[in-house]
């Protein structure tokens, strides 16, 4: 009987780690993680040395919004608690800085801690509300919280400065003689960048740790089905309160950093438009992903600034007009709104799970490709 001799093609990746060597689900090798961390650390250190102050100010705000969006991600993306109130907690942080830091002269760590405690405390109360409410009811309730915040910011003049806002320049931002906004010979923009992104790293680690460990699994279970989560022993009520508190703390820290980076706080920075902005950042980056929150914040905020910057440039000049009588079709403010909305729609159409899903798709393709390769015969 004739036999068919099967010629085995040697694997092109002979000698490379096989698919089976990777632990399940996105657990990359240690050396790869360390490389990524090293690259990020290098970017963190070098960026202020080679980037203009104007651009650094934009990057700092990206970081501020990134922290707030991380809080929103934990609450909304991971746990499924829809909230519009994150700007309220930012306002808590910002006005704590203004009042306790600038007006009363408390040191940085003191007013930071006060801001976190107030933000976490109020947010925990919202978590108690979340036990009874869900979905639309909770969203509307938190919208009410936002409005309460706007009222207080506009009317509580001795604390907030009212609708005209309040300078935060007098607030100390440092420990002892170390001023975080004036590190050595570096400019305020450079120092602020480093300060903000240190906090981004810290809170990204906290958020990521929560997401990948037990709390994250509980949050996901609550997100998928509260009843099922309860059935398997997840303390749904307890987690709602805890996650709300953590998210409130994230928002408050973002507010503190916002205040110290802008040196000024006003009610307009913490209204409904900011709530929409944070949602857009979360959705575009990727709901339920801490990395998505940072990526979304970075892309959305930079895109807005880019439009404003290029409105009179050769590409957009034909479209955007600076005055009623100058050439163009729409004002830069109107164009920003249009571009903003289009960006959200396009991302939702082509990448419904956000930009991080593109990375996930790439990794999944690579894993399928690897698993489809024939193994070498013994």
């Amino acid at each position, binding site marked *: 009987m004739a036999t068919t001799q099967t010629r085995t093609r040697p694997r092109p990746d002979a*000698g*490379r*780690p096989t698919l089976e060597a990777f632990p399940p689900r996105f657990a990359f*090798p240690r*050396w*790869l993680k360390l*490389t*990524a961390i090293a*690259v990020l650390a*290098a*970017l963190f250190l*070098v*960026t202020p*040395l*080679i*980037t*203009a*102050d*104007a*651009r650094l*100010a*934009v990057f700092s*705000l990206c970081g501020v919004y990134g922290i707030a969006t991380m809080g929103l991600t934990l609450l909304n993306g991971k746990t499924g608690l829809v909230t519009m109130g994150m700007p309220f907690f930012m306002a808590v942080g910002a006005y704590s800085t203004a009042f306790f830091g600038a007006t009363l002269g408390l040191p940085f760590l003191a007013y930071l801690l006060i801001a976190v405690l107030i933000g976490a405390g109020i947010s925990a109360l919202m978590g108690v509300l979340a036990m009874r409410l869900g979905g639309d009811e909770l969203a509307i309730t938190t919208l009410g919280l936002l409005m309460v915040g706007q009222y207080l910011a506009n009317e509580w003049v001795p604390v907030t400065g009212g*609708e*005209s*806002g309040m*300078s935060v*320049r007098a607030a100390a931002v440092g420990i002892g003689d170390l001023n975080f906004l004036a590190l050595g010979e570096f400019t305020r*923009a450079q120092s602020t960048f480093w300060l903000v992104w240190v906090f981004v790293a810290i809170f990204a680690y906290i958020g990521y740790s929560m997401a990948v460990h037990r709390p994250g699994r509980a949050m996901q279970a609550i997100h998928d089905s509260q009843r099922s989560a309860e059935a398997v022993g997840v303390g749904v009520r307890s987690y709602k309160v805890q996650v709300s508190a953590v998210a409130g703390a994230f928002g408050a820290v973002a507010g503190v950093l916002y205040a110290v980076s*802008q*040196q*000024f*706080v*006003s009610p*307009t*920075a913490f209204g409904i438009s900011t709530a929409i902005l944070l949602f857009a950042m979360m959705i575009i980056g990727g709901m339920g992903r801490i990395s998505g929150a940072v990526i979304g914040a970075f892309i959305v905020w930079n895109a807005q*600034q880019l439009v*404003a*910057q290029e*409105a*009179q440039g050769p590409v957009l000049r034909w479209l955007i007009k*600076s*005055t*009623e*009588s*100058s050439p163009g079709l729409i*004002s*830069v*403010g*109107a164009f*920003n*709104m249009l571009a903003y909305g289009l960006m959200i729609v396009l991302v939702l159409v082509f990448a419904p799970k956000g930009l991080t899903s593109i990375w996930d798709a790439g990794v999944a393709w690579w894993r399928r490709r690897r698993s489809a390769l024939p193994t070498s015969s013994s």
Partner: protein
Amino acid sequence: MNLRHTARVIGAGAVALSLVLATAACSRDAGGSTGGDGDVITGPGFDGETITLGVLGVTSGALAEPASLVLTGTQAYFDQVNAAGGIAGKYQVELNVRDTAYDPAKAIQEYNATKDDVAAYAQIFGTAMVNAILPDLNADQIINIPSSADGTLFKQPSVVIVNTPTEIIGVNAIEYAISQPGNEDKRVCYIAMEGALGVSVKDAINFAADELGANLGVQLTVPIEGDYTPQIQELRRDNCEIVMTKGSGVVLTKLLSTAVQVDYAPLWLAETGDFIGSMVEFPDVDYIENNLLFASAGTVYGDDSAEAMDDLIAAHEAYAADTPPVFLHLLGYASGMALGQILEQAAANGDLSREGLWNAMNSLDELTFGGLISPITWGEPDDRRPATNYNILSVDVDSDGGLAMKEFALDGKASRVIEFHVAN
């Protein structure tokens, strides 16, 4: 672990990082440097050929119309200057326009984004916007011309207030109103748009009431948007027969519309900057022509007695023909004139750096506007004095600018002694 594979990945990462850094390299130096081109010292916003001026305006929202009116005036002035060869006959001027959406938070962001690329700010629209960035403007020594007429800004080192401060205008308006026969005991009330400027004028109104012995009534505020019926009813309940207003043209138009609906007709007083082009389309023209007066430091469009009027008309017809030539447009043109005088002086000094512009500004004894607006005594901040004389204008929808001169070159007595609370 496959070392060759590892090395490839690390190498790829390093290359990628290097490309990123190389692409971004040298951008830290972008945005302005001080140097010279042989003729004149350059600086941020001036590269030896073109002077770039910033505008932190409002191009969206309820206040886009008044902001645009001012900006078109300024733009028309510099277009005219450019057509004649530019500053000192050789330096063209460009405007870098950004939108703050009348939001102090956004104003800070736009300021940070533009301050290294501009020589000065030809417009910052809104008192709250100016206050938000004022410490930086002073520290960075960046000359700026707010569209605000808040008197608390008048002696700020970096600020050039072209219009007479609103506090002075408010006091002058009340002084005129109660000096008319039969008005001496009429109840004077005040209603203003919410915000810092409204508060500042309110203080001036209280001062005027003491100085002039006016019968002072309620003092109210209104939001930019919303229903003003409650406030109008309250004015009526307090028997207010003279109502001084401060806000924007949008707010004033809404107040008048609401008053017409409830058949309430006091003597309305406002500052000329609150007159906007759309007011000539007001449904009840008789109402505003008979019940509304404006106090102004400036003249009306077409006033032949103003020597710069021909230039203003020519610029308007050449570069802003679609813009109604209301006072705000004239104010914008005058703002351009003020900055133009500073730039010309700096060019004559051979120094268009930040320091050069600063020194040029402080060296001018007077800022003049060819009769369009009263001249201002200038110099170092402590030496600066606003004009206190004023005109009274009434609405005339058939005129080019929508206003007609009613009383000319009146002398404000009470306003001479007014003091401004210095802003933080």
